[in-house]
């Protein structure tokens, strides 16, 4: 019974960490001078402008394309790059729902995504 409680607590912590947006192992922070950060910023601003018309599948397709370009430019694995860009963008999108000013300047966006 005690062991089950610890397992449950661990699961809750892990889920909580995920929900709080803690970076995963593959989520290397982006460099603030990386043009793909600016591209993410523009894409998310456009997504905000679309309001109810936003189609998440189309947004994700665009984000994957950014990940592909990022992989080519930095000569890294494409799947990992796409995943990293998707994860970073999704976290920023969720954060921007609470703090819209994140999408009002590139500097604020850089801080929000932890770009170095």
């Amino acid at each position, binding site marked *: 019974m005690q062991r089950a409680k610890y397992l449950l607590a661990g699961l809750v912590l892990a889920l909580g960490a995920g929900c709080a947006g803690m970076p995963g192992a593959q989520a290397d922070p982006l460099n603030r*001078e990386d043009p793909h950060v600016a*591209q993410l*910023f523009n894409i998310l601003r*456009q997504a905000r402008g679309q309001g109810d018309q936003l189609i998440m599948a189309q947004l994700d397709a665009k984000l994957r394309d950014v990940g592909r370009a990022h992989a080519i430019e930095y000569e890294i694995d494409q799947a990992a790059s796409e995943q990293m860009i998707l994860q970073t963008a999704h976290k920023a999108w969720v954060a921007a729902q609470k703090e819209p000013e994140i999408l*009002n*300047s*590139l500097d604020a966006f850089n801080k929000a995504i932890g770009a170095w």
Partner: protein
Amino acid sequence: MKQPIKLAAIALIALTAVAGAAQAQQHGAPQGDTTVNVQGPQGPFADQKVMMPFYELLRDAHNQGDKADLDAVETKVKAMLPAAFNGGQPVSKAMEDHVLGVAHQALALGVSNPKMFDSYEAFMAAMLGPQ
């Protein structure tokens, strides 16, 4: 001037300076190993005939704020590249991606620095920095 766009502009200048040679190589841009003098002549990047349409396109997108159609902007930038940078021949995907990145940086920085789109001169000053 913002450092990121300056670096991007320098990269674009370098790209432009070697565009012809780079296109002859499979991996010529932007991570090619061609050495260029980025302090030297800026080639088509400083040519108003090349840059004015680029500026006008980004200015119009900037003026539309978050309603800008980025897909349309990207399509138009891609359409400009062969004539602007490679004598009418198609440019590499890497070069295309790189120039699109510069365009995105200009748009992104313009959100908090709208004056850079007030005029062509202001735009070029923001892209190139103090001369």
